[in-house]
């Protein structure tokens, strides 16, 4: 027989766990929308949809690159993956390491005032500064832009988004607009080292070198992995003949 104080503690923890509203609710699908049929080019949109863990299963939501047949993203190709994300209603899941910044449209499922009391939000990431087909009107184009204080959405534009027949919608950044919040997500940028460099002095002592391959070099379309080398010595700094005119950046 368990001590009485232990039974009380267990009962209290059961009550407390029942009080948590979103047990079992998880975001389990992240979909990427592309214009190319191989889904290789940077996605124009990333969408998180919420399902419970058990129905459907997370794995069943994964999808290889295929033409999108739903009404929201016509003429686009999409992939989807299983991503288990506890929704704390305090931070959005991330769209992955794509070299593009996004406008984040967080949609709250309970009516107005961005009520997140059930912790059940959907997240749409729209590529910033990209003129794209308007999914609601595939005959026209649209574009998401950013100012210091607002998100600007241009609709009914030509295919360069320079001429738009509708007045742009503006939303305060990081403020609630009825049932959704508009914010900005700056993607972490993966850097590629691209300028061939000749090292002067043999051998040149490096200030520090990574223990594992932790950088990318790009030679035309070819990508190589490498070790990041920090060279802080002025007399042995690596540089190329061409680089004398355009010195490698110092950080």
């Amino acid at each position: 027989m368990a001590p009485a104080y232990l039974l009380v503690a267990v009962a209290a923890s059961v009550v407390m766990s029942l009080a948590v509203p979103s047990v079992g609710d998880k975001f389990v699908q992240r979909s990427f929308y592309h214009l190319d049929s191989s889904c290789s080019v940077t996605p124009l949109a990333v969408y998180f949809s919420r399902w419970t863990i058990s129905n459907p299963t997370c794995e069943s939501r994964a999808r290889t690159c295929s033409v999108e047949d739903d009404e929201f993203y016509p003429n686009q190709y999409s992939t989807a993956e299983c991503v288990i994300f506890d929704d704390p209603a305090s931070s959005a899941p991330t769209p992955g390491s794509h070299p593009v910044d996004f406008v984040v449209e967080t949609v709250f499922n309970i009516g107005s005032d961005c009520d997140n009391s059930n912790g059940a939000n959907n997240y749409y990431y729209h590529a910033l500064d990209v003129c794209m087909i308007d999914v609601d009107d595939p005959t026209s184009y649209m574009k998401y832009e950013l100012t210091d204080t607002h998100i600007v959405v241009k609709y009914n534009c030509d295919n360069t988004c320079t001429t738009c027949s509708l007045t742009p919608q503006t939303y305060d950044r990081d403020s609630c607009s009825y049932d959704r919040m508009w914010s900005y997500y700056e993607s972490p940028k993966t850097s590629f080292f691209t300028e061939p460099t000749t090292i002067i002095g043999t051998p040149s002592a490096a200030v520090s070198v990574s223990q594992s391959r932790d950088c990318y070099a790009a030679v035309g379309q070819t990508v190589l992995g490498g070790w990041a080398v920090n060279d802080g010595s002025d007399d042995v700094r690596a540089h190329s003949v061409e680089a004398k005119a355009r010195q490698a950046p110092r950080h």
Partner: protein
Amino acid sequence: MGLDGDAAQYCCTVRGDLVEGVSLTGCLLSPSSTSFYQDGASTYQECYGNPAPKPSALIVEEELNSAANYGAAVPDASKPAVLLREYAVNIMGELEGAYRVNINTDANPFYLYCTGRGVVTDNAECRRNSCDDTTPDFVVYDGVAEGEFCYHTCFSRNDA
């Protein structure tokens, strides 16, 4: 790239051994004719500078953590017109460039990311380097025929 301070940053793609002031690289331990950095007993050369984001880069976001040891695989998918080492991948924490090879059908692709390209030998293995090291695990598009390009050291996602 994780290095701080007031120093210039470079990415060096070849690592060798420092022996009596000489950098020895590759499986043949060939003396290097170019300059290099040294760090302890290791050397670093074929370096690149000027880091910047590359909007057209093909970056595989998820870490690849499953080695593909399938023997000699001949894809069902059609052979791409050009196969370049153009994908930036993370293989068990190490950043690499890789060839992407689809070993399933075009309609239902299954991608392997292979960091090496070699040539099929007369005993149907893939020669990986100039030391004649071979591996039985590789992918080849045009059948396992001597002299064909083969792609080796391949990885995929665990859950792919």
